[in-house]
């Protein structure tokens, strides 16, 4: 087994946050006011300190360490939930019990131990997700202000998630079409291929916020000149600038993946296929495409992860999605609303990365 001392870093961080952190929970009079900080000693029920021996087991060099870390995380979360419920018991209805930075640091460090590269992390992740489901279903987490905010905005969060997914997929589709066209044009002429590379490479240098910002006035001018476009559903603000901008960014990784995937075929394989009497079309369908699949999936993974992130920024130009929740939360200084937007983005990005990464390795 590989040396495991680095696992002591997050374990120590989690322990320090629990023992020394001033704000495991805070009790605020309402959703926007800052609360009074309470340490883990103040709020955790006795049984929740079981998380500490579990944490030690989670850092130790043995086979079930990731499972122990998942257990520690679940026990700590349940303890914090019980603490929050106790705080709210008898408080005014508008009062909120919010997870403080010490709790977030401890939870994030424990999550790092669960997802640590190594064996049994899939099992531990499954245990964690299952446990979270049980805790949420059992109402243990209901006291957290995040859960209160979610109940109040359940529909908005669901709609934002759906918009986010839809925009990501649309941008991915648009970029795939563009990349395929450019790849075909590039096959016809090497000079053209170099030109497209330089163009898309230049776009990559422009920060996304600037590209979206440039597209807004340019589209406004275009829509002013051709009012028919506005009637067709295009707008200077909204999904149009976001989708155009994102598709431009995603085209480069997709174009590169297409090109490497199509040209990476071993010449000996091509010769063998030619000897078998395959024509160009069958060669493409039976040899080049299947052999290029890992490259295509690699490019798709990079592009899909970027799409999730860039759509978040698209919330800035009115495209909606989870970014809109984040930015609304930031403008109100409402931590829970920021988290409601940001946590699904993180989960979505990591899940897309892991899912397509697994497919890429299998292909």
């Amino acid at each position, binding site marked *: 087994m590989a040396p495991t001392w680095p696992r002591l870093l997050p374990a120590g961080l989690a322990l320090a946050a629990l023992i020394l952190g001033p704000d495991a929970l805070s009790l605020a009079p309402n959703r926007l006011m800052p609360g009074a900080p309470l340490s883990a000693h103040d709020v955790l029920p006795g049984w929740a300190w079981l998380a500490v021996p579990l944490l030690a087991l989670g850092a130790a060099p043995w086979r079930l360490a990731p499972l122990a870390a998942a257990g520690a995380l679940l026990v700590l979360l349940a303890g914090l939930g019980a603490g929050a419920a106790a705080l709210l018991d008898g408080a005014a209805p508008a009062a909120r019990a919010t997870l403080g930075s010490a709790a977030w640091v401890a939870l994030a460090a424990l999550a790092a131990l669960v997802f640590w590269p190594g064996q049994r992390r899939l099992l531990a992740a499954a245990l964690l997700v299952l446990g979270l489901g049980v805790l949420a279903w059992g109402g243990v987490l209901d006291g957290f202000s995040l859960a209160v905010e979610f109940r109040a905005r359940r529909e908005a969060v669901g709609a934002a998630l759906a918009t986010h997914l839809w925009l990501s997929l649309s941008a991915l589709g648009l970029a795939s079409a563009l990349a395929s066209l450019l790849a075909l044009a590039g096959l016809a002429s090497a000079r053209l291929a170099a030109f497209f590379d330089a163009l898309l490479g230049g776009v990559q240098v*422009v*920060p996304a916020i600037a590209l979206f910002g440039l597209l807004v006035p340019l589209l406004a001018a275009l829509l002013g000149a051709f009012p028919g476009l506005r009637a067709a559903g295009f707008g*200077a603000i909204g999904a149009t600038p976001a989708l155009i901008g994102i598709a431009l960014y995603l085209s480069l990784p997709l174009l590169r993946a297409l090109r490497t995937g199509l040209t990476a075929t071993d010449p000996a394989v091509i010769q063998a296929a030619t000897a078998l009497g395959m024509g160009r079309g069958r060669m493409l369908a039976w040899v080049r495409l299947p052999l290029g699949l890992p490259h295509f999936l690699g490019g798709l993974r990079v592009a899909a992860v970027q799409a999730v992130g860039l759509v978040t920024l698209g919330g800035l130009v009115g495209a909606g999605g989870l970014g809109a929740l984040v930015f609304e939360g930031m403008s109100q200084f409402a931590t829970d609303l920021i988290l409601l937007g940001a946590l699904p983005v993180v989960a979505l990005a990591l899940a897309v990365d892991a899912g397509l990464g697994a497919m890429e390795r299998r292909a």
Partner: protein
Amino acid sequence: MRPLPALALAALLAFLASAPGAAMLARGLGLEGTPFDTARLLGLAGQHLLLVLGGAGPAILLGIAVGLWVTRPSGAGRALRPVADAGAAAAQAIPPVVVVALAFPALGFGAAPTLLALALYAVMPVLRATIAAVEATPPDAVLAARAMGMTEREALWRVVLPLAWPAMLPGVRTAVLLAAATAAVGSLAGAATLGTPIILGLQTMNELLILQGAAATAALAFLCDAALGGLAARLTGGQGAAMQAGGDRT
């Protein structure tokens, strides 16, 4: 991108961002709004650059140091190697704007959340490039150096680093460009950067202001790109082509 066209693009965009250039473009496009003062824009550009250097500079050095440490053939740092890989992959998946947003409630309004995100996102590409570059050095060269009686440390300084550092430069380029982009996003959390006019313009639907901020932000990015490309070409004497490999962005 090659340094010279990048520099030309930066100059063109900077002109469009300046008050007279923006006014000219606005007349051409039929946009409305009051232009931002050029001097104020230059001040914001200075603050933007300061934030990038202050956040990304130390982080780049840290990324190189950690990258060298985890690739040492002997030593405790090797155990960190898989962790560094996983961390870099996770950081690449999570968009910087989310990190700014998550740090915002904890660190408050101002430059602090942006600095944190800048530092985090500058470490990772440099760390990854350093690991890849060191691992790509021919083992024979290191073996020969050790056989000549060099200590491991001498071999690092006199053989591995001179061979590896041109391949580390693309990581630095990615880090700086990512930092320039992240700093612009940081104006959402109250950092004074070239993103400020974009956000202000979007809030008040002042299209001219959006245009100026966006052109200035893009100009700064192209300027950084040209400067790094030129530096790399000068330092490596033509091997700077590696700098154009571009690649990962978020």
